[in-house]
């Protein structure tokens, strides 16, 4: 108990100013936690609960998908036919690789390997960017031009099924929400990079890296389901 | 325990309604063969509630009285903090009561949903804010038989059904969700835009006419009361949700057949366009949104609409003439009147040409700048 100094805004954690050790060695814990370990555990649980909310958010899209595939199976087969499996496959591989680099980043943070921690963060960021670019250039843009748009804006002249707009509604909705999560993830990796440069992470101090990593894995898992469900219908 | 429950249920069921509790809850016995499925179960649950409530509240008041601190020697008490058999008992006994309630509810539900396949079928189309019934010969309720069931003077359709014959309603909506609710038959069903839903009932008694052969009787307080069964919309559907009502009367089979014949052709030969318009005004439910006496409603009033200039939502002022009226009736979203919601449906393809012409004539007849200004209205 004695180590905890109850400052005015104690929740920010106590970091004595006149100490030239790296940040992660100076930082103890926020005042309401017993120690760093205690805080670490609590934060990780918080992150998992947050992931639970993310999964449930996406579950809405999956339920909508299930219901409409059940109601209008032909529309989904038709719609899926317009999606190019190879781009989907490439994107899946990109995301899986990025999942690996995140896991590696966590590992390097744990071992205190600052250089490879930074490299892995950058790699993950680039993978996210690649995913978005592939999506935008080879998938969204052509479909936008051809009028394969959701609902009212659907103007593709060769549609074979009256419910195809609905398929595109589900497609744009699900992939759009997913892509927005990728963008948020990239922002988080940029933030991690800045902090990594300031030597904020090290053994026992990698909450942020791990938390963002867990988030990124969930984004990956969502895509693991979206890929076969959208691209591989026949 | 179970015996007591079943005995109570049996007693309630055998009462056939009309008891004090029944009258207090429902007013009168429901007029359909499955209404009693609801009523007796309702009364049974009321009894379960009363007994449970006494079982819970009785001890509460007694304990508060008995163990008030002013009656205690010390301000703390030692007594058991749990009692497993007791706790098990009060977890399981309620379950025993709930199981039969669920089962009877399920039974009654099936009998309300599973209609006989030889039922008389009536198509019901719900739209904002009108119930449109179509009978098997194509007849639709005629505006001259419309009734006033609200306190206002709004006239709503009168749906007739035959006595002692199952009636099945096949319902769909042309816009948003509605729900066809006949309190006297103790049943309702949602009406959705993307699938047919159905409900059925079999009315037991012919509706007796009220004063002077009309469908009304005078209440002691001098107000008018509709003697038939009221039909409400139970799913919120917008501005005039509470006006989306209809009257429903039960006729003998002969009267029923006759009524359907009568209603077959709403616009007879030799009717003037204005007369056709007057009928269409109610039949197409223009009256739910547009008044003819100058009052504001969901839509603008038709009084003095023709021949005057009005402000529109796009900031312009327009003079209302025949062409403008026709465009506004058929494609209502093209020009919107300032200050009113854009909730009018598109009537192109719905209204017949004679109806459009009739409505225009009718609107003209309501204006003091129209050709009818000298004619008695």
């Amino acid at each position, binding site marked *: 108990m004695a180590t905890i100094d109850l400052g005015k805004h104690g929740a920010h954690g106590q970091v004595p100013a006149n100490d030239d050790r790296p940040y992660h060695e100076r930082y103890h814990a926020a005042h309401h936690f017993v120690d760093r*370990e*205690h805080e670490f*555990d609590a934060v*990780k*649980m918080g992150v*998992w609960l947050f*992931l*639970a909310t993310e999964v*449930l958010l996406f579950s809405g899209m999956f*339920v909508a998908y299930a*219901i409409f595939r*059940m*109601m209008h*199976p032909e529309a989904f087969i038709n719609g899926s036919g317009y999606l190019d*499996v190879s781009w989907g496959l490439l994107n899946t591989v990109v995301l*899986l690789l990025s*999942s*690996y680099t995140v*896991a*590696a980043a*966590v*590992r390097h943070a744990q*071992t205190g390997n600052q250089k490879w921690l930074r490299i892995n963060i950058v790699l993950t960021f680039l993978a996210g960017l690649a995913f978005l670019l592939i999506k935008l250039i080879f998938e969204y843009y052509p479909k936008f031009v051809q009028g394969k748009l959701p609902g009212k804006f659907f103007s593709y002249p060769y549609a074979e*099924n009256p*419910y195809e707009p609905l398929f595109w509604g589900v497609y744009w909705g699900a992939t759009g929400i997913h892509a927005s999560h990728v963008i948020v993830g990239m922002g988080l990796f940029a933030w991690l990079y800045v902090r990594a440069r300031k030597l904020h992470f090290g053994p026992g101090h990698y909450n942020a890296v791990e938390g963002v*990593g867990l988030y990124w*894995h969930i984004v990956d*898992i969502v895509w*693991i389901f979206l*890929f*076969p*469900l959208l691209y*591989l219908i*026949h | 325990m179970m015996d007591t429950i079943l005995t109570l249920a049996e007693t309630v*069921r055998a009462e056939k309604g009309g008891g004090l509790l029944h009258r207090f809850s429902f007013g009168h016995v429901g007029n359909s*063969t*499955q209404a*009693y499925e609801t009523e007796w179960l309702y009364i049974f649950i009321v009894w379960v509630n009363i007994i449970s409530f006494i079982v819970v509240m009785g001890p509460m008041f007694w304990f508060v009285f008995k163990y008030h601190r002013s009656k205690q020697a010390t301000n703390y008490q030692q007594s058991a903090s749990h009692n497993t058999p007791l706790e098990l008992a009060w977890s399981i006994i309620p379950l025993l009561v709930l199981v039969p309630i669920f089962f009877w509810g399920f*039974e009654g539900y*099936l*009998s*309300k*949903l*599973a209609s*006989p*396949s*030889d*039922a008389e*079928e009536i198509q019901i189309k719900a739209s904002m804010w009108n119930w449109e019934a179509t009978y*098997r*010969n194509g007849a639709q309720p005629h505006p001259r038989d419309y009734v006033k069931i609200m306190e206002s003077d709004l006239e709503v359709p009168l749906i007739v059904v035959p006595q002692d*014959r199952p009636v099945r309603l096949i319902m*769909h909506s042309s816009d948003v969700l509605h729900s066809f609710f006949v309190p006297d038959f103790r049943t309702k069903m949602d009406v959705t835009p*993307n*699938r047919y839903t159905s409900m059925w009932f079999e009315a037991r008694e012919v509706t007796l006419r009220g004063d002077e052969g009309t469908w009304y009787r005078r209440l002691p307080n001098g107000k008018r009361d509709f003697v038939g069964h009221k039909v409400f919309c139970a799913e919120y559907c917008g501005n005039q949700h509470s006006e989306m009502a209809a009257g429903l009367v039960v006729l003998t089979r*002969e009267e029923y*057949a*006759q009524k*359907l*014949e009568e209603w077959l052709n709403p616009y007879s030969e030799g009717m003037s366009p204005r007369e056709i318009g007057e009928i269409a005004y109610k039949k197409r439910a223009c009256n739910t949104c547009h008044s003819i006496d100058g009052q504001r409603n969901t839509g603008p009033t038709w009084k003095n609409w023709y021949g005057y200039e009005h402000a529109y939502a796009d900031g312009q002022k327009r003079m209302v003439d025949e062409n403008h009226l026709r465009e506004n009736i058929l494609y209502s979203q093209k020009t919107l009147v300032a200050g009113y919601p854009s909730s009018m449906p598109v009537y192109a393809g719905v209204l017949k040409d004679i109806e459009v012409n009739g409505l225009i004539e009718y609107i003209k007849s309501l204006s003091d700048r129209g050709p009818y200004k000298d004619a008695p209205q």
Partner: protein
Amino acid sequence: MTSHADSHAEHFDAHGHKDHGHVIVSVATLRLVLGALLFFTLLTVGAAKGEQWIAEVFQVTIPQSINVIVALSIAVVKTILVVTFFMQLKYDNPLNTMIFVFTILTVAFFLGFTTLDLGNRDSIDRTKARYIRPGGTGLAGTETLAITEFAKLQAKRNETYDPHHAHHGHGQGQSITDAGYLPKVPRVGSSAQASRPVTKITLPGFAVEADDDDDAHGEGPAH
């Protein structure tokens, strides 16, 4: 829900110093998992292409469900790999695993019950089918009404099927009486979507003894 299960583990551990969550996963494991993930990705594409190939070559129709089941099974395996190793649930506080499991359970409820409703809209469950018949009044017919009342109603209903009675009215009302109250036969289209919205609730010929819902289509009136 996650409460009592971990209560023993950390009954006095609220401020304890148990050292979990600091396992460092080896590079070899991570690479192995990545390899497995890539393999399964190719497998799922291969399976989809394979199904199509089989369908074309052998001229068979593979039901949609196979496609869905294969694709989802592989996706589930991949998810388990990611969650266990990349997300380190294997080495982590079991509480976090529990959170994840309950989340999946909640999603399952959501998906399951919604599908239960919207997937069963056009089928009639058997309990109900027994009561859909000419003159049927559901359970009310046999239980709530007294026998005599029921018989009376029954007699009245039979009347409507008697062509002689059909003309007993007042002479006019030809179109109604001619129809003789015979049930109108609704057309039920063959394609599921062309005929939407459909209701099959009063299909004529929905015989009392009909066992399978789907057999009841398209037969003539029962009488």
